[in-house]
């Protein structure tokens, strides 16, 4: 797989480390009354359905940026690559 890094251009996926579903960026509010249940769902439960999947990759052997990669997990086709910090700032 080739990941088209927004800053560095196309890079081999083996330069990256995979973390998982990009929902991990949406950390629950620890002060919420439902925090225990929220953190259980956040940490352990995944949607994990076929098709389009937004996921976090870390460019460990490159510029060490975190990326949000949109990839079809049924075909491995990558359709979108964003810097995770841009995604976090835009709040999507």
């Amino acid at each position, binding site marked *: 797989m080739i990941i088209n890094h927004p800053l560095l251009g196309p890079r081999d996926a083996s330069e990256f480390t995979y973390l998982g*579903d990009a929902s991990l960026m949406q950390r629950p509010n620890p002060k919420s009354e439902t925090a225990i249940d929220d953190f259980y769902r956040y940490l352990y439960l*995944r949607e*994990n359905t*076929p098709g389009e999947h937004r996921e976090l990759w870390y460019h460990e052997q490159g510029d060490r940026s975190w990326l949000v990669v949109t990839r079809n*997990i*049924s075909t*491995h086709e990558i359709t979108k690559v964003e810097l995770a910090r841009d995604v976090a700032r835009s709040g999507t």
Partner: protein
Amino acid sequence: MRYSALKIFKEAVTGHKGWKPVWRKPAPKPSYDFIIIGGGGHGLATAHYLASKFDGKNIAVLEKGWIGGGNVGRNTTIIRSNYLHHENEGFYEFSLKLWEGLEQDLNYNAMVSQRGIINLYHSDPQRDAYARRGNAMIMNGADAVLLDQDGVRKQYPFLNFDNARFPIKGGLWQPRGGTVRHDAVAWGYARAADSKGVDIIENCEVTGFDIQNGRCVGVKTTRGKILAKKVGVAVAGNSSRVMAMADMHLPLESHVLQAFVSEGFKPFLPGVITYGAGHFYVSQSDKGGLVFGGDIDGYNSYAQRGNLPVVEDVCEGGMSLMPAIGKARLLRMWGGIMDMSMDGSPMIDKTHIDGLYFNGGWCYGGFKATPASGYAFAHLLATDTPHETARAYRMDRFSRGLMIDEKGQGAQPNLH
């Protein structure tokens, strides 16, 4: 039709005209007592034990493709019970005991071969960890022998003992471990279940659950609605996809694991060996090919095929362990989709929906678990209580902090 030496002799002298298909192709009935979703090893084993050990009647197995087309035909065929945690070890030892009696139980040659498995160690701390694991195995009724370097050398003189970085210091040997002909497991269970009246319905994909007032009363399929008193799901790899139809999220990610076969050689590898410094495990099939595998690719996938970096990584592991295979050519490789769970251990449990039961999360250890998984799931379906060896495999253990994490990796499925 029972198989016997006499039967083979009779067929040999009469032109092999008497062999018949060994399971029927029934159309689905409008209702069943038990529906098992998934005609893989675990689903077929569940149906067999439900019918033969728990007096279950009126059972159907629904399979979206053909039976045995998923992971039961895509693994490296290894059986073993060499776990550390007691929640796992008792269960896998129960499984190994069922493997030992499987062919007599099924009247089917599944080529169960207890050729032994050795996990190699390469340092003093790793030896200590294996000694502890061996003790845990023995305490759970399994067999374990801690070998020093000479002990390993006697069985495998050609290994790379003097590797500068990872010298082989010895190994943890389980003589009762080994290999089984994986397709024959699916076929043997299917034949045995069919002979007890289980309907095995292929090309019948479940497209939804019929849930009324918090109770599952049947399934919708590509061959129409089917009612059921109890529905068991055993579709590892696709668990999240199927359970999403019941609005459930699971503590799972689906990942691809690749396996490989080399060209055939004269017999030189008598048992199963696993490398302790890299992820590599290998045995030699009866046809002579080396059957081996390594790590999962490491990213979510439903594609049943992996990528080249892992192929290179696995072959490097093999080369550093057994330089003798350097000239061997890779003949075939394939990928299977694993339910990678959040603690590396499986689930066999009721769901919060009455009448709906779940079996999954096998990571890449599902094949060796096939008989015990089927037995324990049948026990749960028949009696509504967990089998004594599968009590820890609850779905709510993640919210209660009762993880069974053999590798201590935490909630990171691609590291288990």
